[in-house]
């Protein structure tokens, strides 16, 4: 309807010319405000977040948290895009080269050292400090990202390995319901439990990150947590590591056939189906145990990884974090807002429950009732206590010193620890030969990149 007609109609219906003019003036005043509002909406800061947590339950839970954050914000929107660990090195570096990288990228410490070489990773100590002021980070979570006078990622969640075991299988073999305490007992139990088509312990020897992790956990327990000496040189070929590899190789006799091509799924599947009595893995064993095994939660045992008499408690610990890849101040500020929201204990509990038991809190108040009282974790209070406690004894190869040798990125990406294990178990080399070959490989990797200051 045209303006003239409207005015005519208004006048005809008894409205005065003044009223019409007042209305027009009000509209004229409102127009810039509406335009500004539209501009603000258009200029909403968008954060694109890449992560490699592919399982649908994790993606859904992350989305729940993102939806809550986006709903709470007028000027910021965070969108997740799911990637996978298999090709993230390639994808991330290619995206950075093309200038189309995400604003935020999930990471683990060795991935950060690799991506940092592109120059795209932004220091985030200001963001870490802002979160720490209210929620205090656990030191093992931040330490692997702190080098070269900066912090390169904000820790989000931890992961730690334990010895998982089937108490019902232990009982059936006459071993009671308690876990083995040291290496000798571990070997003895593994042997006794290997019978009638069932196997004592899952010892993987595939060229896979799982092998890196499992073997490194044993290395820690036998005094081998430092992959580099204090001067930054590779320090892998040590008597302790040779002894650890010999023990690992010995244990592999009680592992199911096919362990040399295992990835993540097999040990958990075998433990749940009762074909495997012990496995060393992270906390994802909790969630599906009852449903997949048909056994009550009490039959799933958890214990620290046994250590030799002269060794120490410990296991691999991954501090998963998020890197900021944008140098835009508005995006940095938006990231700060997002993290502030995320680390509120109740929200953080929702986030961690993307994978109950696997994702562990990295802040002191993250170990909250909201997290512990979730349906899955409430069934395994002892295991949850142990996971949290074990985090304090966690280490990550290459990140145990104040200085980081950037060669660790290649050592990890090429699964060099796993390659050493393969030499010993698949190729049947002696532990001495395999460890010596590993030392050479790692030295070559370390020499191919400039050491950090």
């Amino acid at each position, binding site marked *: 309807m045209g303006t003239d007609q409207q005015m005519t109609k208004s006048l005809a219906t008894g409205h005065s010319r003044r009223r019409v003019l007042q209305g027009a003036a009000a509209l004229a005043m409102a127009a810039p405000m509406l335009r500004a509002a539209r501009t603000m909406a258009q200029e909403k800061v968008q954060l694109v977040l890449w992560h490699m947590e592919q399982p649908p339950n994790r993606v859904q839970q992350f989305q729940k948290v993102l939806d809550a954050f986006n709903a709470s914000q007028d000027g910021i929107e965070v969108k997740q895009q799911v990637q996978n660990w298999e*090709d993230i*090195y*390639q994808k991330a*570096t*290619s995206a*950075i*080269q093309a200038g189309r990288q995400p604003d935020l990228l999930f990471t683990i410490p060795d991935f950060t050292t*690799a*991506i940092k*070489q*592109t*120059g*795209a990773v932004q220091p985030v100590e200001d963001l870490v400090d802002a979160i720490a002021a209210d929620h205090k980070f656990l030191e093992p979570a931040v330490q692997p990202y702190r080098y070269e006078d900066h912090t390169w990622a904000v820790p989000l969640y931890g992961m730690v390995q334990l010895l998982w075991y089937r108490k019902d299988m232990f009982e059936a073999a006459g071993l009671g319901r308690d876990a083995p305490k040291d290496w000798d007992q571990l070997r003895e139990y593994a042997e006794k439990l290997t019978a009638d088509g069932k196997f004592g312990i899952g010892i993987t*020897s*595939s*060229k*896979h990150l799982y092998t890196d992790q499992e073997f490194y956990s044993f290395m820690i327990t036998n005094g081998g947590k430092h992959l580099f000496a204090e001067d930054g040189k590779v320090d892998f070929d040590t008597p302790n590591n040779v002894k650890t590899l010999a023990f690992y190789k010995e244990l592999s006799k009680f592992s*199911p*056939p*096919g*362990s*040399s*091509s295992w990835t993540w799924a*097999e040990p958990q*599947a*075998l433990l749940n*189906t009762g*074909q495997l009595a012990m496995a060393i893995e992270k906390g994802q064993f909790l969630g599906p145990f009852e449903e997949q095994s048909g056994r009550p939660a009490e039959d799933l045992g958890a214990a620290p990884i046994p250590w030799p008499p002269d060794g120490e408690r410990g296991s691999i610990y991954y501090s998963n974090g998020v890197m900021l890849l944008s140098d835009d101040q508005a995006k940095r500020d938006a990231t700060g807002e997002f993290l502030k929201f995320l680390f509120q204990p109740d929200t953080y509990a929702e986030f961690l429950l993307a994978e109950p038991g696997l994702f562990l809190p990295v802040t002191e108040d993250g170990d909250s009732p909201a997290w512990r009282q979730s349906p899955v974790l409430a069934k395994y209070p002892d295991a949850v206590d142990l996971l949290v406690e074990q985090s304090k004894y966690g280490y990550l190869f290459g990140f145990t010193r104040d200085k980081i040798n950037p060669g660790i*990125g*290649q050592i990890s*990406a*090429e*699964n060099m620890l796993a*390659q050493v294990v*393969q*030499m010993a178990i*698949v*190729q049947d080399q002696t532990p001495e030969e395999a460890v010596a070959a590993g030392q050479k490989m790692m030295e070559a*990797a370390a020499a*191919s*990149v400039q050491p950090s200051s």
Partner: protein
Amino acid sequence: MQATTRRAGQTPLEAIRGDRGSAALFGYLFVAPLILWLVITIALPLVYSVFLSFTDIGVVGTEGAFIGLDNYRRIVAEPEFRAAFVRSLVWAFGGGLVQIVLAFAAALTLNQAFRGQRFARTWIILSWIVPTIVIAIMWRWMLNATFGIVNYLITHLGLSAVPIDFLGTPQWAMPTLVLINAWRWFPFLALLILAGLQTIPEEYYQAAQIDGAGPVKRFFSITLPLLQPVLYVTGLIGTLWAFNIFDLIWLMTQGGPVSATETLPVLIYDRAFNGFALGEASTISVLLALFLLIYSVVFIRFVPAGETEGGVL
């Protein structure tokens, strides 16, 4: 109707367009988008790869310094590269041999009249159309040493007392992958051979039979020579494809165990994205491309293209 005036030596089309030069321009305009597309998608990346092979670039996206032929000297002398090259030869030619045997058997069978022939001809292609990731996952589980169906059968039939770790044992991994790849690709080859078989006139076989030629003689004297054009093309293209296969190997074994299945494409990927040595990876790519170029030239020059019913190709 208006008649077109044609000058001496002009084709009707040229006459319509005016002259020979404008006709050429017209043709170039038609092919220009394709040429541009090929330049962008093939020529430029290829040139860039060659350039990278002369640098020491590490991580993708970082700067690299020009180092001349250093990468080439180092790579050619590297035992890892040589071993991967030999594995690539085994993978391509060994796999090719298995595929040809299977494809011939299938094609000759499908060329016979039998009940269900049409069904078999249609569904034989199934393994070829299934996505690689599905094939990889399916075979990984089937070959699993603990709960895979293959090992269940092997142990229950008494073929082996203990399960065989097909993908985790160096001596088994490559043959296993070769067989899986052959299983995947032989139906495609079988259909090509079948198409070739159906162009051979039945009279040739009848005449040979009257002359007393047995099945073996007929196969080697009639079938094989007349299928030579098909085998020539598949021999060339199939080998080039096989050399470049990466996905199945990576998904099944990632080149392991202990590099037992690390062919050149796997080595290239591993070097570029796990070893953070893009310059070296580019060098291996260039060397592989050169080898395939030489192979193609030699193949085209020396392998007979065969005869068709109408004459020599």
